[in-house]
């Protein structure tokens, strides 16, 4: 089986599992919604909310991503599904890329659901063109998914995994949160200096680093069973 077909097979499997247990993604939507709502109440007043829209979207996504990623490996451990998957004639890197891509798609769904809600609740007044926003969302979700998939594969089999995942993941994704929130805010508030391009560049570099390095590290993790 060629690499691309193997990755596609893993993505298909992951998305099928998600589809069969739709309540999980549904729960993520509700969780993200509740987060951006709660965040608004923690701020000094409604007049500040337009400035916070970009930050709220990405904070909601980062927090929701820990639930999504934790779940993506927790289900593998039931009934020894991971062991069965390792018997497939595909390289471990294909499993990593498949899982990371599937997680990217799930996070993108959450992002597409949260973005209009943040738009409704936080009243941002877009002053620039928003055509780059989808790019930032894709790059940001990819940047959360790659290290997230690797870290989830580490923590899922430790005791108290759901508490451990954020402990390991949050320091790692500081640049992602910073770059995507800054880029989104700049796109919303107008970007005369074209700084959003630079932040998108940070996300691209982060993605290049993690989508290559993490696949190598994942092989070692999986070897150890």
């Amino acid at each position, binding site marked *: 089986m060629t690499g691309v077909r193997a990755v596609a097979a893993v993505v298909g499997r992951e998305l099928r599992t998600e589809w069969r247990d739709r309540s999980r993604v549904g729960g993520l939507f509700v969780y993200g919604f509740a987060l951006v709502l709660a965040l608004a109440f923690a701020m000094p007043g409604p007049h500040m909310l337009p400035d916070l829209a970009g930050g709220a979207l990405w904070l909601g996504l980062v927090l929701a991503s820990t639930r999504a990623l934790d779940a993506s490996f927790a289900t593998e451990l039931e009934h020894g599904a991971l062991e069965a998957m390792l018997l497939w004639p595909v390289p471990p890197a294909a499993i990593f890329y498949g899982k990371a891509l599937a997680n990217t798609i799930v996070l993108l769904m959450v992002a597409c659901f949260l973005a209009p809600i943040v738009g409704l609740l936080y009243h941002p007044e877009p002053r620039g063109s928003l055509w780059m926003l989808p790019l930032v969302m894709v790059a940001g979700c990819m940047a959360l998914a790659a290290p997230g998939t690797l870290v989830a594969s580490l923590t899922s089999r430790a005791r108290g995994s759901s508490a451990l995942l954020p402990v*390991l993941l949050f*320091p*790692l994704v500081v640049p992602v949160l910073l770059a995507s929130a800054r880029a989104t805010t700049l796109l919303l508030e107008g970007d005369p200096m074209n700084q959003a391009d630079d932040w998108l560049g*940070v996300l691209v570099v*982060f993605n290049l680093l993690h989508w290559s390095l993490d696949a190598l*590290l994942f092989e*070692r993790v999986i*070897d*150890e069973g």
Partner: protein
Amino acid sequence: MELMRIKDLPITADLAGFAAVVGVIALGAVAWVARGGLTRRWEHLVGLLGLWMVIVGQYMGLVSSPRERMMGEVGRILYVHVPSAWLTMLTFTFTCAFATFFLFSGKRHWDHLVEATAEVGVVLSILLQATGMLFAKPTWGVFWDWDPRLVSTTVMMLSFMGVLTLRGLLDDVDRRATWTSVGSILATTSMIVTYFSVRWWRSIHQMQSSPDTVADPMVFVLRWNAFAFLFLTVWFVVQRARLSARREALDAPPALPEEVPA
């Protein structure tokens, strides 16, 4: 600005040279000692040398060296702060290097060194943060500033604390070793991206301060203290690695009981 400039410079200007020369030597030395290259007595001599150098170095820093021009007596904390900054970076670089060696070779002694350097590195970075905060209050007027170095050191400290937590929660020896190494490599590489992204975030608001020169007597005391910290760190790492090896031997399942004759 004037105050920041003095603080900035030994770290940025000297770090590359210091890390390159001393780092390579120390890397070889630590690896050699940990594999049993030194007898116990010689190894403790390194620790004693470090202790003596710290005492002399701190005397020089606190008493005999001239007062810092801009900061006066407060500037003397540099002689603890800067060496701990150098050594934190160096130790975590070692963690990453040893973790890579472990993943390639699978030899257990690298894993003990990973645990040792990660733990010593966390202790050093706590010292770094504590002295940095004490130093920042009188000079910058605040305990914390969103400076790229501050943020990336804190992020790295948190990452390694997370890795050590993960390590503590795993019981299987092989799994624990591999996963600690994977986590350490992730923590170190992401620190670089964090540094540059935070620098970018800051540079939108203010320009980076430019390097300047440090007075010669200060440089000598700084270097002296850096070597003192280096020897002590090597000693701590070697002790910690040995402890890690002993613990592992203790936790290993007992050999099969010998057959009892009927």
